[in-house]
């Protein structure tokens, strides 16, 4: 068997194993969905009237704020879901079965690839579920063209891939599940500090660079542009560069951690 088909076959086997885990123990994934849904409802129904005053030129109503908020919430959903990936990778590494995999003549990277593909699928599924909640409470992106939809889905997938590789590295470098959950917290905190809830120029001046120079803001602005027709500008390629950079960083980091001798 060629090494590529070996890689594909073994990774598919590992993916099946991870999906089996996710299907049998869905509570972790579902719990992680609660945060974005709660934030969505909280900011629209409780803070919505105040928040909407801060966007556009004022005088915007709650439904306009909902439209502003949803792209950020979708990316926050991805961040949250990948925390789950960090936790499940770190839990998995403490299992004896990983030692068994290491002594079998299988594709070396298949264990990690199985986790990554499984996690990206879970991210996409979570985005669909949270997106469905958003649509149910009145979010509409009917002006977007088919091409823009395709690009939006592509962007969400790319962000999922990038954050997942980072999360896998965090999971591998953590000694246990609690540590993994703590170490992966930035994946959920960064979107809170981005343009997800309020525009960057409405933030205090000293804080604006924090919100500006991080991966979530350009990704959120790009998604807004694709779904709602706002200005994308340089955010498009910034988002792509961030994602490719994070994915490569996470990949090489994870690989070197996995290739170390286990304790």
């Amino acid at each position, binding site marked *: 068997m060629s090494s590529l088909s070996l890689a594909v076959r073994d990774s598919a086997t590992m993916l099946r194993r991870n999906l089996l885990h996710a299907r*049998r123990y869905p509570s972790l994934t579902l719990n992680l969905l609660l945060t974005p849904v709660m934030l969505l409802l909280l900011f629209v129904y409780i803070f919505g009237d105040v928040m909407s005053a801060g966007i556009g030129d004022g005088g915007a109503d709650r439904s306009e704020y909902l439209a502003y908020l949803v792209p950020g919430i979708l990316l926050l959903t991805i961040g949250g879901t990948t925390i789950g990936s960090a936790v499940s990778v770190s839990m998995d590494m403490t299992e004896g079965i990983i*030692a068994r995999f290491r*002594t*079998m003549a299988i594709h070396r990277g298949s264990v990690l690839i199985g986790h990554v593909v499984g996690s990206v699928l879970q991210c996409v599924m979570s985005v669909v579920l949270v997106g469905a909640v958003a649509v149910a409470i009145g979010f509409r992106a009917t002006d977007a063209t088919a091409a823009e939809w395709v690009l939006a889905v592509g962007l969400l997938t790319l962000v999922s891939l990038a954050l997942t590789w980072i999360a896998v590295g965090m999971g591998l470098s953590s000694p246990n599940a609690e540590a993994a959950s703590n170490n992966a917290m930035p994946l959920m905190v960064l979107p809170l500090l981005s343009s997800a809830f309020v525009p960057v120029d409405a933030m205090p001046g000293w804080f604006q660079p924090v919100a500006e120079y991080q991966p979530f803001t350009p990704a959120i602005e790009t998604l807004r542009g694709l779904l709602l027709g706002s200005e994308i500008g340089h955010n498009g390629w910034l988002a792509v560069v961030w994602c490719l950079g994070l994915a490569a960083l996470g990949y090489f980091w994870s690989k070197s951690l996995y290739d170390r001798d286990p304790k």
Partner: protein
Amino acid sequence: MPSSVMPTSNSGDGRPSPTAVSTVGLRKSYGDRTVLDGIDLRIPAGSVFALLGPNGAGKTTVVKILSTLITADGGQAQVAGHDVAADPQSVRAAIGVTGQFSAVDGLITGEENMLLMADLHHLSKSEGRRVTAELLEQFDLTDAAGKPAQSYSGGMKRRLDIAMTLVGNPRIIFLDEPTTGLDPRSRHNMWQIIRELVADGVTVFLTTQYLEEADELADRIAVLNDGRIAAEGTAEELKRQIPGGHVRLRFTDPSAYRSAAAELGEVTRDDEALALQIPSDGSQRALRAVLDRLDSAAIEADELTVHTPDLDDVFFALTGGTGVPDQPKETVR
């Protein structure tokens, strides 16, 4: 299962080699702590080899290196004719490993664990199902096949673990303390399983803390102590080196204890416990001799126990440790 398998060396002259596992000067340390300090082994194909040693002796480290889980710091190791450092993937294709800690996926069922192994060995769907059903049956796990592996008892987990190891028909199997923590019945079942493997021509490399177990199963035994091989040979050869058999007499009356010590002469005294150890092979004649001398001096011991050589004795004998009856003596046979 193939009836008899002899790994052949692919390297060099291509002459078939009857050696399943060999190491030369294997070394490993963690920081300042030297775990393995030059291990030389040669294990013929089709035999059972036991690595005997106490906790922390380095047994697991040897298994981890030979099974390609970790890399050695120095020395060479060949498994199934392949160098573990240069060609780990070929080694992996020839071996099966059951580690000390359960290597099953607890979140999925026993049957799913087996099918997972079948997929990773690239068996076809039908072949995978057949092998799974066969092994589950053989290891008495058919009834529990649909339950999550984390709900299994220790013995069941160990059986599933070995069944998973056997899916790919490995020619060389490493078993790291396969019976530690098992009840006596499960232990005997495990011994039976190992004997059946050997009957099929598989080479078995096992580690154990129990002399009895090595004695029961192994063709050759190496005693690992402090990162070195302290002794190697058949069970008989090793036992000949062990002077640890003794009779232990315990007293409650200090004066009886003292007079017994004086009467018996060549003894090891334990003044706190009021106990004496008399070197003995444990035979009826040797026991009678001890009792006759006590009787003639009208001394009565409160407790008499006969100790046959055990792992402690092997170690004390081989390492010249303290707290044992004297130094090794010629064993009278």
